[in-house]
């Protein structure tokens, strides 16, 4: 007998939703029959705002496109401008950029761990990981002056050089996080309950993953090796030695294991970066930002963010302001088309759990 269908609104204000968006669920009993993602609750028109701002003024805007991981936005915009303009970036700046990107990946994964385990009822983890993320934010504060919004990577390099002894403090934090990972393992990844919740839930069909445009850890969790850092290396990623982990299964568990192993890879990358970082200039100065114009042209650049492939398309008409900047992030695919598909058949209680595993960042959908 077919059960009665009920409509259930998850969000826009719900602890299980990462940011303000809403999933309208049609449920029969505990099973989801249909899911619709509704966005529009925090539309701030970033792309449009940038068209009326000078190139340099765009930097304080782009970092807000993803709160948990703002730095790929800055790096993308900077690199897009550099590509159109043909501006060289000093090697040291490229190393610093990679260090910042990886630190932000770690911070994002710590938040994810909190969210993933929190949405399965394991509330101790968020307390730990959010606290440990603060040690990375401390590093950001020291380096950039801001904890969450850094506005640090910009055209031509980075805004300030590393403070004295900063590398040492980064390494110390890396050692600490590596040690803490053992605790996370015990509490979360080795937990029979977590495994039970995660395995076989939210399965992405490997054959459809590419067609759907799935990227990042969800794609690698389907056993498909794809990572911008390896496939189309940017900055100095080609000078580093690291593995991109993949995991078969396509379920929440596979994605969790991919991220868990990437966490270690990122720590290793940061150590390599600090080891290899050359001395020298950190900034190839741009002309006066009030009058600076960029020759006409366009560029598409992308980074591997914690959520997956993250691209910026920038067009200059030769003026001091961008003609168009388009942000192409994974959250749109993961949060709308993918989520709507894989929620069907899932248990209501797994909605937030699955959503967390995909890496959905609503402000990035509504850029």
């Amino acid at each position, binding site marked *: 007998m077919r059960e009665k269908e009920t409509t259930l609104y998850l969000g826009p204000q719900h602890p299980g939703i990462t940011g303000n968006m809403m999933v309208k669920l049609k449920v029969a009993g505990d099973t989801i029959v249909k899911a619709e993602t509704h966005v529009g609750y925090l539309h701030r028109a970033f792309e449009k705002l940038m068209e009326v701002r000078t190139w340099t003024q*765009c*930097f304080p805007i782009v970092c807000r496109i993803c709160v948990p991981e703002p730095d790929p936005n800055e790096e993308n915009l900077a690199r897009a401008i550099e590509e159109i303009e043909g501006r060289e970036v000093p090697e040291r700046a490229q190393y610093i950029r990679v260090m910042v990107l990886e630190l932000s990946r770690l911070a994002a994964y710590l938040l994810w761990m909190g969210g993933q385990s929190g949405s399965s009822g394991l509330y101790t983890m968020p307390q730990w990981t959010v606290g440990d993320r603060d040690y990375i934010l401390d590093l950001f504060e020291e380096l*950039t*002056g801001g904890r969450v919004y850094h506005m640090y990577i910009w055209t031509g390099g980075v805004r300030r050089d590393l403070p004295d002894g900063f590398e040492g403090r980064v390494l110390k934090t890396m050692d600490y996080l590596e040690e803490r990972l053992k605790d996370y393992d015990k509490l979360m990844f*080795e937990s029979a309950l977590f495994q039970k919740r995660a395995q076989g839930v939210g399965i992405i069909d490997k054959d459809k993953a590419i067609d759907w445009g799935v990227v990042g850890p969800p794609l690698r969790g389907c056993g498909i090796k794809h990572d911008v850092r390896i496939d189309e290396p940017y900055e100095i990623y080609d000078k580093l030695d690291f593995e991109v982990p993949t995991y078969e299964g396509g379920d929440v568990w596979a994605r969790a294991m991919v991220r868990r192993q990437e966490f270690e890879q990122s720590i290793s990358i940061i150590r390599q970066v600090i080891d290899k970082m050359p001395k020298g200039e950190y900034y190839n100065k741009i002309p006066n930002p*009030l*009058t600076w114009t960029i020759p006409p042209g366009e560029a598409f650049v992308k980074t591997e963010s914690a959520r997956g492939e993250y691209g910026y398309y920038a067009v200059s008409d030769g003026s001091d302001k961008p003609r168009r900047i388009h942000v192409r992030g994974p959250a749109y695919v993961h949060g709308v088309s993918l989520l709507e598909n894989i929620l069907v058949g899932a248990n209501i209680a797994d909605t937030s759990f699955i959503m967390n595993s995909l890496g959905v960042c609503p402000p990035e959908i509504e850029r």
Partner: protein
Amino acid sequence: MAVINLKGLISPFSAIQQGAKPPHTVKYPAEEKETAERYRGMHFNDIEECIGCGTCSTICQNAAIDMVHLDGFETNSGDSGLRPRVDNGRCCWCALCVDVCPTGSLNLTKDYNYVTDDPDSFLLMPGVDNPEGKDILSYKGSDGKSLLEYERVPMRELEGSERIKSFAEVVIGYNEEEARKEAQRCISCSLCTDICPVHMHIPEYISAIAKGDDEAAVKIIYDNNPLGETCGKVCTRRCETTCAIGHQGEPIAIRWLKGYATSTAKHIDVIKEILDPEIAKPNGHSVGIIGAGPSGLTAGYYLALKGFDVTIYEAKAHAGGMIMYGIPKYRLPLDSIDKQVDYMESIGVKINFNTKVGIDIKFEELKKKHEAIMIGIGFEVPYDIGMVGEDAEGSIQAVNYLRDINSDIKADVGDKVVVIGGGNVAIDAARVAKRFGADVTILYRRRVKDMPADWEEIEGAEQEGVDIHPQAIPLEILSDDKGKVKAIKYANAEMVADDKGGRPRPKIIEGDEHTIDISTLIGAIGQEADYSFIPEEIKEQIEISRGRIIVNEDQATKLPWLFACGDIANRQADAISAIADGYRAVKGIEKLLLKKEA
């Protein structure tokens, strides 16, 4: 049967161990977390150092900063009197404002806590509302490279050794690429506009150059200065001394940029095409101008545009006054002046050359012919040096010497020249004499830094091999038995503090006297005006004080129909002030004749 994951069931309980460890958090508010050295907290502005240029407000992408007047705060020149006010409800602490602050006065502090129930108090006047911020500065502009460009695009010049061979223009001028690059350094703060006597639209024309629109730049320049090309070569450029970028870097080369823009209009037809002047219908009023110097030409140009019947009476064969006869051709070539004057004539300015008022035409006659008269005759009569032996042959005056050279009259100064004075005229005379192969020494009473001459001129003279001898007081001119100068005796001086609190003055060091052999002595210690052409009864009605005619804000004398401009009316004694006077006189004449209130 399912395998029981025993390890997976037990291991989470290891978290209990964490309970024995000390907490990571601080016990706020008993304990506060120390912010990082670069922390971006609330703003602090050193209001004494700030010049109110508003660059912080311009760069702010959130429009969180507005510039407001600060009551009870005295401002110096080069200061708008405005100070930034930050709306902390809008600010995102990106610190772009700090990174573009040209004085370095605006910084961020460690302070980040602010609690209030009054939304209006979100408006923070940094440095005024939070004076304590001074001691907790954190993110500072000086920490890194400023976003502004502090280095000027260097001006190409002829080499010193090359220059003294001819009267070729020393300054080569910016090419297009250089001009664009230099113009792009400007932050359009407009402080220069305030200080410019003419209030030229400097940020506007620089912005046009930066955008590659030279024609627009020329139009903007001609809007209130018809001698822009001259100013682009020889202006005393107070604008550059006040330039905001000059506080921590080299000021924008405003003069050279003006020179670049005007030089793109190489021919008067081009100027006409660009400006496409709209000349008003004749309004039936007639104005006479005495002297075709910068002030006379400026007044004549704008009056003619406004439909006045303008006649300029010029004693000499060329227009330009001091810029024609007082400035050497290596700074301001003749064809440049001619081009500008030709253009003025082409729009209806009549110039009667070789007509000296008082001799060729009586002042009274002018009074009958014209409804208003403007005098702009300049200071052409040099002061005597006031020294024994001054009347000897070979003792000449710099203004006369420069005039002769510029009029192609032969003036042989021999091979050993001493110039007395420290102003631009002295330097000009010295550099001209150098070009005729003489060994030139300048004797100046005070220190080099006290010289009123433009530092670039002083530097140029030094590069060309002029020997500048500061703190040297001339005592006596020695002549030979034929009455020709032979040598000059001078004494070295030391600087002593002035009892009355004025600037330090030179005091002769007893016994430290020297003599230099000379073939010519050139005096350049200042000039005055010759008012002999003005009838006595008129002189009595206008007020002349210390050699200058007293005028009101419209350049009118005590006689409402008589206007005075340029050196005879202002103390600045430079071309740009004269142009400003001429521009103001136009307003005064309009008020007088058209009964128009400005």
